[in-house]
């Protein structure tokens, strides 16, 4: 028990790293398929969408988990990072919103 409570920052940093790694691998796949879609014909695009089908929405949540862990475990860092990187983060969020819409509209 003491082993855990003494190393909480390290444990949470590791959890964050795992979460972001999971996001990069899983959603990276979805985003990659999305990027390649421009080069396919109608039938190929339908096939591409079905490969990521029900999963792309869920894969985004790994990022949400990572940011959530940042807020919960490292609130000062969270405040500092999101304040300084406000506009890039806002653009990223808008991009994610539009990606979701584009996915749904085909």
């Amino acid at each position, binding site marked *: 028990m003491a082993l855990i409570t003494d190393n909480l920052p390290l444990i949470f940093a590791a959890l964050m790293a795992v979460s972001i790694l999971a996001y990069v691998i899983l959603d990276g796949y979805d985003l990659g398929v999305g990027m390649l879609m421009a080069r396919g014909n109608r039938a190929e695009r339908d096939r591409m969408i079905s490969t990521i089908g029900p999963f792309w929405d869920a894969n985004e949540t790994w990022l949400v988990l990572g940011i959530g862990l940042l807020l919960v475990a490292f609130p000062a860092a969270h405040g500092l990072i999101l304040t300084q990187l406000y506009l890039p983060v*806002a653009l990223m969020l808008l991009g994610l919103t539009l990606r979701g819409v584009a996915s749904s509209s085909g």
Partner: protein
Amino acid sequence: MATFLVAFGTTMSAFWILVLNSWMHTPAGFELRDGVAHATDWWAIIFNPSMPYRLAHMLLASGLTCAFLIAGLSAWRWLRGDQGRDVAIALRLGVTLGAVLIPVQILVGDLHGLNTLEHQPAKVAAMEGNWETRGNVPLVLFAIPNERERRNDYAIEIPNGASLILKHHAEGVVPGLNQFEGKHPPVAPVFYAFRVMVGMGMAMLAISWLGSFYLWRRGTLPKLVMWGLVAMTFSGWIATLAGWYVTEIGRQPWLVTGVLTTAQAASAVPAAMIGTSLAMYLAIYVVLLVAYISVLFHLAGKGNSAVLGPVPAPPPRLQPAE
């Protein structure tokens, strides 16, 4: 199964979001050490004083939004000539669900108001447009709150109404905004948003009970009621938004009531950047909203075959043996 899982997940999400948001309104289970809040009692943090009321009120609001959306779209389809059994079922479901939920919501809303009176009296004072602490406070149906001169202009009021609702007594003393000089929310937005929400609630009650009465007695709805339901399609959404405006604007100037003001918590991000991102969000959401509503009504108007595809011809019947 999948539907149940989604509903369950969303409800869990609503629970935790409302726990967090309610703590901002009625913080509990913590102590301040050197300006930092430390958790001392997690049960008190989670089940803080306003949480049960706000959770119930929000869940009912979601149910109502959904009921009126289904009822309105079904009525639209019916009026367009699509009068199949599935449309009838959806219509009955929407109207009946709405009729059942709205009186419960009105009751929960009242209880929520009483809880808010206890913990956030400044918010209630703004909601009621009550400038002076006194008894025999009228229920203001409509007015134009005059913040500079601290009175209501062009007021249409029911005598003793607010005292009766909040204190169950005509002489009941209702807190006034004068008690909270400098520490109360801007009155006009809270005042108007509250009336939009309650007004919508009354309209929901009227149309759903009228509709239910016709369904019970006649089994069908007159055209006027159908059109009324179409008009009320987004009433739940409007009422829910108005309610959130009441509660969140009503909490100002506090971010965490009595602990941290919004001004203290504001970051140093330049206003221009915030303005830019807000403008981008609004632009995108307006476009998405328009697209969503048009697609919704377009599909509703087209009927099942357009959405589900052509129904395959039934297999040829076997000839009876000679």
